[in-house]
């Protein structure tokens, strides 16, 4: 697996504020590589540096064999980029947007005809070619934006929170497209703050306050969490949460649906003791089950281990 992206100590400062702090990682060809973190974690800034939109303060990044700081225009011919905000021209029709980006990417003649048909099919908007883009539903717009971004069949695709604002169905459909592109050999770098989306990625970078706090496959990341998590079934979970707020050996107690999720101290992995605590407070426990940590659990635990507060 050759590296599509190689990043060494990439740093970006805005005045006294360090948005991205000595970040290093590699992305293999054909991978779906995710950036996970809350707003302000440095995901967008990292993506902007990798796409040549923002010069790094220090460090280096080689993307598709091109040094991002040296040959920004060369780089942009080899990548596709979709920004956070929907950014096609609303006052152009679907076809006019496709023609514009084809012109900018140098996709002409028969190749354009083929790619146009592909993009319309992929976005599921055949028959809407003459409609103003502004009139389309957001999910369609985002798929069209994706189509425009990969019209020139780039080996690398950068997506900055591509599904923000759309419903879960449209989000799912969008991820099917990402999988399709990756299966065709495209390397995809995607940022998100949706934990469930992070699960779709082959590998992940967890970012917090400009720094990488962990990276690996979703399963590996879940393995990083030493603290056991149990799900307790009680009748009045909200009140039960209160009862465990300052209990010894309990790292965290939170509502999870109608159940209670409790993170225990690894040294005091005693769920029966918690059952007793709850019973003493008048909450009968009907069942206890150990659960797999979600990526959110992992994220919170890692940030806490670093001694920081989590702000999502």
């Amino acid at each position, binding site marked *: 697996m050759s590296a599509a992206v190689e990043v060494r100590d990439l740093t970006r400062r805005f005045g006294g504020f360090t948005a991205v702090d000595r970040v290093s990682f590699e992305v293999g060809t054909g991978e779906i590589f995710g950036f996970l973190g809350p707003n302000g974690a440095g995901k967008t800034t990292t993506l902007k540096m990798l796409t040549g939109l923002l010069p790094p303060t220090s460090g280096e990044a080689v993307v598709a064999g091109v040094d991002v700081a040296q*040959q920004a225009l060369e780089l*942009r*011919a080899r990548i596709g980029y979709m920004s956070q*905000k929907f950014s096609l021209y609303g006052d152009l029709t679907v076809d006019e947007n496709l023609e*514009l980006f084809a*012109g*900018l*990417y140098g996709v002409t003649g028969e190749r354009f005809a083929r790619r146009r048909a592909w993009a319309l099919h992929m976005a599921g908007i055949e028959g809407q070619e003459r409609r103003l883009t502004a009139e389309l539903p957001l999910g369609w717009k985002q798929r069209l934006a994706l189509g425009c971004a990969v019209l020139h069949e780039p080996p690398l695709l950068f997506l900055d929170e591509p599904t923000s604002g759309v419903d879960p169905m449209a989000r799912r459909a969008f991820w099917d497209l990402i999988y399709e592109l990756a299966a065709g050999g495209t390397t995809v770098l995607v940022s998100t703050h949706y934990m469930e989306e992070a699960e779709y990625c082959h590998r992940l970078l967890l970012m917090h306050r400009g720094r990488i706090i962990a990276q690996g496959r979703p399963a590996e990341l879940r393995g990083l969490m030493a603290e056991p998590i149990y799900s307790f079934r009680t009748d009045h979970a909200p009140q039960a949460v209160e009862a465990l707020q300052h209990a010894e050996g309990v790292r965290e107690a939170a509502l999870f649906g109608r159940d209670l999720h409790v993170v225990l101290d690894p040294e005091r992995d005693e769920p029966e003791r918690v059952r007793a605590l709850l019973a003493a407070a008048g909450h009968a426990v009907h069942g206890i089950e150990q659960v797999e940590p979600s990526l959110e659990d992992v994220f919170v635990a890692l940030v806490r281990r670093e001694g920081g507060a989590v702000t999502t």
Partner: protein
Amino acid sequence: MRKHALDLGRLLAVARKETIQLRRDPRSLAMAFLLPLGLLLFFGYAISWDLKDLPIAVRDEDATRSSRELVDALEGSNFFQVAERLDSRAPIDHLLRHGQVRGVLVIPRGFSRDLAAGRRAPVQLLLDGSDANTAIIMMNYADAIAARWSQQVLLRGQQLPGLATAEPRVWYNPTLASRNMIVPGLIAVIMSIIAAMLTALTIAREWERGTMEQLAATPVHRLEVVFGKLLPYVVIGFIDVAGSTILGMLLFGVPLRGSVLLLAGLTLLFLLGALGLGIFISAALKSQVLATQVALVATYLPALLLSGFIFDLGAMAPVLQAISRIVPARYFIAVTRGIFLKGVGVQVLWIQGLSMIIFAAVGIGAATAAFRKRISA
């Protein structure tokens, strides 16, 4: 490292997109076509430094054929209109004080007698000096009319022509119609404003809508963006200048004596600079509202006041004269007036041409630089 060459295809893709957007935006269309037309009509009709049919009163104490001829000559000039014929000098003060007349001509008894005897025959013209400019113009008109009339009297052979008189001939604008000066100047002023205002919107709009980032992520070179955006506006600018020229000729009777080709060439240079300035403002400020206001202030006042359009540059304080040298409208006004009225060519206008080449280079250079800086911020 392969050099990233400028590509006409990308430039045209941007130009095409810009044209489509312009076509769908009524606000920009109105600004592009209706505003210049409206300004030309408004200023063309509203501004005039010519005075016509000024009301005067006449007290003819001589009441002879000669005195009546002099009054007829004044009235026949179109500059004056005799509003009152007085029986005495008594109401003169009242008439002037109330502004009913702008001046009073008094022809004293003995006027025709003096004239017949070959003596100087003075008449009195009382003027309302509260509007000094008008008073001076009236004085000059009356002097000229009286002098011409005197000459006719002399030529009738009643006396030998013993006086040498200067015979002024005004070239380029023989009737001294101020409209002939205003319209070509106005075209320059209007285009200064319109050009900068039109492009002031174009990049700021992309920032506000978030499309600039997507554009910046493609392999498009910033010069391709700047020129791609300029192209449709250059075409609009040409249509505006051509329309204003035709309208000026048909409606206001302004002559076009020089080369149309030269006018077109120099117009192109001017438009590149003025449009570039607008793009620079737009790229630097990133906000449509702010950019429009700055573009208006940066072009309107200098183009109006420091270009020689209204005020003679030669009569200005040295510091204002120095500032006027960086007002592009100054050079374009010299071009339009020179080509329209004097019919002069490159041998005269090369210095304006050179100034506008510098202006175009600075405008487009600044636009491109501001654009690059903003892309990465």
